[in-house]
């Protein structure tokens, strides 16, 4: 049974560090249950664990840095508000990915209505974030950037239903079962959708994949 604490509990720095170390050993589900009992540090740990992987997923899906960050923020706010809605029947990761995925799809529909195009359709020089590997030579780094940019652009060109599964499977490396629960589609459909998404993407990236 998780220890009940007041939601506004304040900790001393030493106590906080000790609790953080303790929380780092817990599973996602244990963390959310502790958070349901009012432990805010458990929520901090959830944010720490998921912020980058959710951001990666949403960014690959939307292709826009600022919007993706907003969506991840909104995802955590929803988790915060709806913490009581989480039940043990589902994995926590499934639940949080479903929230983020739904918000990302809503954003996509909103953009479609307003004819908004992501900034990633600009050249790779225009992006405002740094993901370079410093161990590579400048030339290799430039080429790597270019390839990444091309792949990202072609992922964006896929329809959302193919884009979603290929990101979840090949970039986030989730299991078919989990993807099936996240997007609420039968397992067989997920598998065939992943296969079709890969076929579409390899056709679009033929020039790049054949030359490498």
């Amino acid at each position: 049974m998780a220890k009940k604490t007041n939601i506004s509990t304040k900790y001393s720095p030493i106590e906080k560090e000790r609790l953080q170390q303790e929380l780092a050993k817990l599973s996602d589900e244990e963390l959310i249950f502790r958070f349901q009992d009012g432990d805010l540090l458990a929520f901090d740990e959830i944010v720490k664990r998921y912020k980058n992987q959710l951001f990666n997923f949403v960014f690959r899906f939307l292709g826009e840095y600022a919007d993706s960050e907003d969506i991840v923020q909104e995802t955590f706010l929803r988790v915060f508000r709806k913490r009581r809605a989480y039940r043990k029947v589902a994995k926590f990761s499934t639940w949080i990915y479903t929230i983020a995925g739904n918000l990302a799809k809503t954003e996509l529909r909103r953009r479609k209505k307003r004819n908004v195009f992501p900034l990633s359709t600009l050249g790779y020089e225009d992006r405002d974030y740094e993901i370079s590997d410093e161990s590579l030579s400048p030339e290799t780094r430039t080429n790597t950037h270019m390839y990444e940019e091309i792949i990202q652009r072609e992922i964006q060109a896929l329809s959302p239903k193919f884009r979603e599964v290929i990101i979840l499977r090949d970039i986030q490396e989730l299991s078919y079962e989990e993807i099936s629960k996240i997007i609420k589609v039968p397992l067989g459909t997920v598998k065939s959708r992943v296969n079709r998404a890969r076929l579409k993407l390899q056709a679009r990236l033929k020039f790049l994949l054949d030359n490498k």
Partner: protein
Amino acid sequence: MINCERFTSLITDYLDDNLDKQQKAEFKNHLQSCKECAAVFERVNSLQQHLKKLPSVKTSPVFDIVLKNRLRRELVKNTTWNLFENPWIKISVIGLSAAAIFLIAFFSLYYPSISSKQQQRFSSTVSNFQTFTDRADSTNLSQQQVEEKIYFVIEEIPADLFMSERQHFDLLFSTNAHSDSTFSSLGQIKQPAYTKSLVTVTF
């Protein structure tokens, strides 16, 4: 023997090692015999590697600060809202709201009677003032005497009304100050705009 369409539909299952022995054998046979399908297979295989190698993008350094601020606002909202979960606080708030509504209703019903008394008093003041100015033209009062009378009349006007309608009185005095004919300028108050503004004052 499988065809090209069947082959491409099995690529993912083959890569995930989900084919049975016979399917795997047929898949391999087609792979060796069809150059186009072999190229597709190679590209899918290579694509998977590329996707796995894509760098993981990270949130900006201000992400945590922004999120914490938003959560703090959420907490404040929650704390305020949670107060209402206490039945005694809920009953007190409902009781106080009901009392406030009752008091507002009571005063809004009572106030017009006070206001109508003031209205009557003010109307008679205005009426006296008009009668006075009508008569002023036909009498031999000096300007000083007229102004004294005006001050006297103004004193009878309720202070709050005088303040709210001050611009009209200021206009009256400024007209007097620059007029050659005392009584004709005093007649200004009989002009429709001014009279109307005095009469239609609401409390």
